[in-house]
């Protein structure tokens, strides 16, 4: 996330403008309840201090604050002297460690045991993991140091072969070998369905669900706090003006409507950040304040339809081909078409109705057709194109009727006969 920290700038407005950024105390942004935080903290304390093995899953949609929760809890945990001394952490990520072998190497590396392992060859995964945990035993060989395994993107680990890593980790957490805590973070609510039976039975079925429960007024308040400058800002007069501007902005009716629209589509913090980033990018030295128009423009950019934007840039020939495809879809009720059919439809239009377009040669039309395929506005029905010729390959149109009509309205200098052809009921 953007971390624009305030420097020691006093005087020029330009300097102040560059320091404006989004208020960065992120832990206040997310509103996980204290109960959840305490629950997790308790669990990890039991492992770190008392040597009890535990496993827990943190589940929540993207941007709900799962990693942030874990970071806060770890920060609190490490304040305890004993935990700080003996706890070891291993951070694994499902995106990076795509294989159990790679995961094991990473674990060895993070526990700093490469020298101990050396060139040993192990028979199985369990042996290897057992060896690593043995090696962590303290001097008097009575107990092992507690290890905290954090598995980010937990659902991706469930796709590994036989789920060996998960099985072994949960196995160790259930048996009395060494005190470990396994914390899995995932965005899938159905993550337990992904686990095999033997893995699921060794899991403690403890889950912490993070679901956003913001109301709209809280959302608005969040917007205001995010945009306001903190108290410690060097130029206090500028900060005062800025914060007043933000307050009037939040009170504006049109701004509230826009934010209501964003809130209805997604409540999470990340999309809010994106909106505010776009809004702030319009602040410059010449214009050092936020106006409602900025937010409206940023919202328009966020909600822009990408396909409509791409349709705007097509040439007239390609647009005519899309209209021909639309007519074919209407007449034949969504059955796939090929290049010859579209060309035929286009020729019918040229014969009957066209004044501005004239007939192009076959290779030109084929090239336009292929350009549309490259933009993925049309897609082949089945993947393989080896057997059929290019002109006869069946395709489907990936655009909606309303998208095409809207694009036609916005198209610059669209010839009227093309527009009328599009609006007529049958080709």
């Amino acid at each position, binding site marked *: 996330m953007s971390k624009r920290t305030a420097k020691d700038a006093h005087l020029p407005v330009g300097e102040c403008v560059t320091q404006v950024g989004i208020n960065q105390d992120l832990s206040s942004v997310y509103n996980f309840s204290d109960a959840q935080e305490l629950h997790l903290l308790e669990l990890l304390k039991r492992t770190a201090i008392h040597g009890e093995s535990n496993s827990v899953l943190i589940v929540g949609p993207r941007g709900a604050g799962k990693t942030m929760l874990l970071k806060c809890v770890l920060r609190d945990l490490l304040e305890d002297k004993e935990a700080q001394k003996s706890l070891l952490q291993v951070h694994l990520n499902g995106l990076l460690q795509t294989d159990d072998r790679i995961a094991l190497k990473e674990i060895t590396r993070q526990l700093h045991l490469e020298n101990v392992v050396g060139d040993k060859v192990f028979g199985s995964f369990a042996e290897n993991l057992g060896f690593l945990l043995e090696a962590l035993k303290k001097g008097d060989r009575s107990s092992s140091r507690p290890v905290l395994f954090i598995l980010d993107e937990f659902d991706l680990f469930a796709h590994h072969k036989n789920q060996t890593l998960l099985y072994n980790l949960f196995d160790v957490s259930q048996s009395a070998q060494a005190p470990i805590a396994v914390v899995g973070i995932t965005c899938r609510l159905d993550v337990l369905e992904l686990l095999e039976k033997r893995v699921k039975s060794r899991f403690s079925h403890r889950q912490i669900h993070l679901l956003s429960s913001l109301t709209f007024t809280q959302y608005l308040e969040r917007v205001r706090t995010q945009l306001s400058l903190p108290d410690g800002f060097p130029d206090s007069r500028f900060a005062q003006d800025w914060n007043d501007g933000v307050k009037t902005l939040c009170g504006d009716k049109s701004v509230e409507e826009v934010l209501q629209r964003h809130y209805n589509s997604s409540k999470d913090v990340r999309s809010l950040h994106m909106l505010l980033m776009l809004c702030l990018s319009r602040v410059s030295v010449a214009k050092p304040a936020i106006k409602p128009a900025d937010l409206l423009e940023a919202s328009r950019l966020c909600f822009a339809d990408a396909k409509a934007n791409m349709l705007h*840039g097509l040439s007239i020939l390609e647009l005519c081909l899309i209209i021909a495809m639309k007519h074919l879809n209407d007449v034949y009720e969504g059955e796939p078409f090929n290049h010859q059919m579209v060309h035929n439809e286009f020729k019918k239009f040229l014969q009957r109705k066209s004044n501005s377009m004239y007939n192009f040669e076959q290779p030109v039309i084929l090239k336009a057709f292929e350009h549309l395929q490259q933009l993925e506005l049309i897609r082949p029905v089945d993947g393989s194109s080896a057997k059929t010729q290019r002109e*006869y390959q069946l395709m489907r149109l990936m655009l909606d009727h309303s998208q095409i009509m809207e694009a036609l309205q916005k198209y610059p200098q669209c010839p009227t006969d093309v527009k009328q052809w599009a609006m007529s009921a049958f080709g």
Partner: protein
Amino acid sequence: MTALLQHPGYEDESLQRVAEQLPCREAQSAVLLSLMGQPQQYSYPSIFIYGHRASGKSHVMHVLLRELELPHATLSCVECVSGALLFERVLLSLFGHEAAALLPRSASLSDFVRVYRQQCSLSPAEQTRFIVTELLRDADANLLPALLRLQELVEDNVTVVLLSEIAWDKFRPNTGCFEPLLLHFPDYSKGELQQILSQDRHPSYSADFYSSYINILLGVFYSVCRDLRELRHLAALNFSKFCEPVANVSTGNGKRINRLFLTGLTAVKKKQHCAYTCLSAHTHIELPYYSKFLLIAAYLASYNPARTDKRFFLKHHGKIKKTNFLKKNEKTSNHLLGPKPFPLDRLLAIFYSVVDNRVAPTASIFSQISSLVTLQLLAQVSHEDQLDAPKYKCAVSMDFICAISRTVNFDIVKYLYDFL
């Protein structure tokens, strides 16, 4: 024009140079600059820029990064076929040879992040590092989500900029990911194209002359093609042709110059057909006599339904009822649906009836069929193991077969079901 690009973090001089090299893209470069912010500040972890071909996406990024001298790595996914190549390039550009050498042979994402973190701790970032890459559709499944989160994974001031022609919705993974900031680069309007194309004129001709030439060029080609690169290529190609009439004239009065422009225009129009006609592989082929008839027989077998063979190829045939319904339902026109497969026996039967003189079924006839398949005029549909009843399809267009049948004085249209 240049006053629009101002940012406190960068010198005005370099910004002016940037603005000169990016005509008609001031708004987009201003947005990018404000998103990039000051060099030592973090910016948004990933940015996705989409727009048509040749709408200036990579050009703007490269000019910005080069003129403002920010540390960056430019990748082309076309060159980096595997992830390992990509990682090596990034480490090479951002940290140098030694870092790239630390990567193991077939590096995984895990190795890349590890080496990156090591290098970061050795040389922490004073300025934002940029990785600019073009997204390909069939990249590795976990590469994209990892790239989008790279800032978080390596804990460094790095931003990944992704360029693409296809909209973001097609790339989004199933279970979601860290959403990048979406930026659209709109296409150039006709006026903007005129402005950009007029800039690369030959110094020996005047600006007015060249811009009128560009005007004519756009008038001809704009309805078909708006791609800046292609238009530049066409302009370069046709300019010499356009200048010929002008060069041949010593003095001109008004009327004559008009006529010159008209001749120039027709020359350009002629070139349109040539320049756009992709070189078809079938333009000039000389086939032996029997091969031509084999090809004609194959075309007839592909595009006529089997039940109509009796009517076309027997001397005494009965009538075939063609119902009104079939005639009106245009979709059954075989020329729209494509060629149908046919067995070898049917091909030979039609061949014998079409060829004038008597032909014996020798090996030379069969080998000609195989050579037609090699020339890709016929396509083999059945599996290669089936030796006794192979099936073929005819892969030539109507124009080509008409040209061939004209050379052997055969009226093919009379034998086609669709033209009855």
